[in-house]
């Protein structure tokens, strides 16, 4: 297990009441599941099926060191020390 810094943006940080947390895990999925346990109010914003926590909510973007995890191995993407995850809900207006 490695410690990774997780940054929350837009309404996620308003729901969680924090903008940054450090969480341990081996994969992106581990990190997001732990995040959901610590801040249950985030589950339905992050996961399509909050009960199963197996699929990302459609429009959320999870960046691992600047790469969208959809272009890596998705939720199964393996983590290493000093990784940084940014969770960005869509900000759409203009």
């Amino acid at each position: 297990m490695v410690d990774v810094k997780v940054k929350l943006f837009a309404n996620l940080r308003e729901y969680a009441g924090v903008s940054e947390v450090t969480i341990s895990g081996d994969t992106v999925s581990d990190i997001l599941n732990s995040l959901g346990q610590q801040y249950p109010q985030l589950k339905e914003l992050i996961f399509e099926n909050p009960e199963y926590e197996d699929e990302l909510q459609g429009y959320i973007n999870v960046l691992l060191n600047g790469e969208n995890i959809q272009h890596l191995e998705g939720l199964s993407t393996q983590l290493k020390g000093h990784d940084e995850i940014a969770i960005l809900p869509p900000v759409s207006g203009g």
Partner: protein
Amino acid sequence: MISENEQNLYSRQIMMFGEEGQEKLKNSSVTITGSGGLGSPIAIYLASAGVGKIRIIDHDTVALSNLNRQILHHHKDIGVLKVDSAKGKLNDLNPNIDIETFNETLSTDNIKNLIDKSHIVVDALDNYHTRFSLNEAAVQEQIPLVHGAVEGFHGQVTTIIPRETPCMRCFISKTPPKKTFPILGTTAGIIGTMQANEVIKYLTGSGKLLTGRLLLWDGFNSKTEEVPVNKNQYCEICATE
């Protein structure tokens, strides 16, 4: 050449980038896609800075509920085409520049023609469906694009230089649905002003652009942060370019 009147008008910024920089602005053509919450401050600051040709595309008419944030439009403009309202204000603000307007809805059919011959394009759109079409056209035509988006107290900005930097599709994977979003005028003002600042830097060759990084504004906590964004080597839009 810039006139004596223009030397006086722009004297405080000529102190920053010289008459040469001012001439670059005067000889530049910028397209702003939208004249709403973001488009208003973008157009106002680019016009007042002396960008020689500003093209504005919008298909909408001014509505009462626009006026909390769309500062180019006033109560007397309700029901008027936004491009006409915008053109009137910008001509008053700076009679030395050309304002070209198109009352059209951007689509894959017209987007390339509408951004043609622009030195840079500014995203002042309100949905990702059109943003992704604009992103694709800008990458194909190799026209730099300043992306901005806002919602509530939050906003984001990044500058895309085709072939050099990631495009919008590299870091935003899916197209969120169009919706009525909450928005405060100050959020749009802050993000639109940052976008105009990027355009002025690009055109004058000043400073460091917001490339390869997404700047995020959190007006609720008064914080700016940035996250790196990397080129996706398999990006369906920019990888093959």
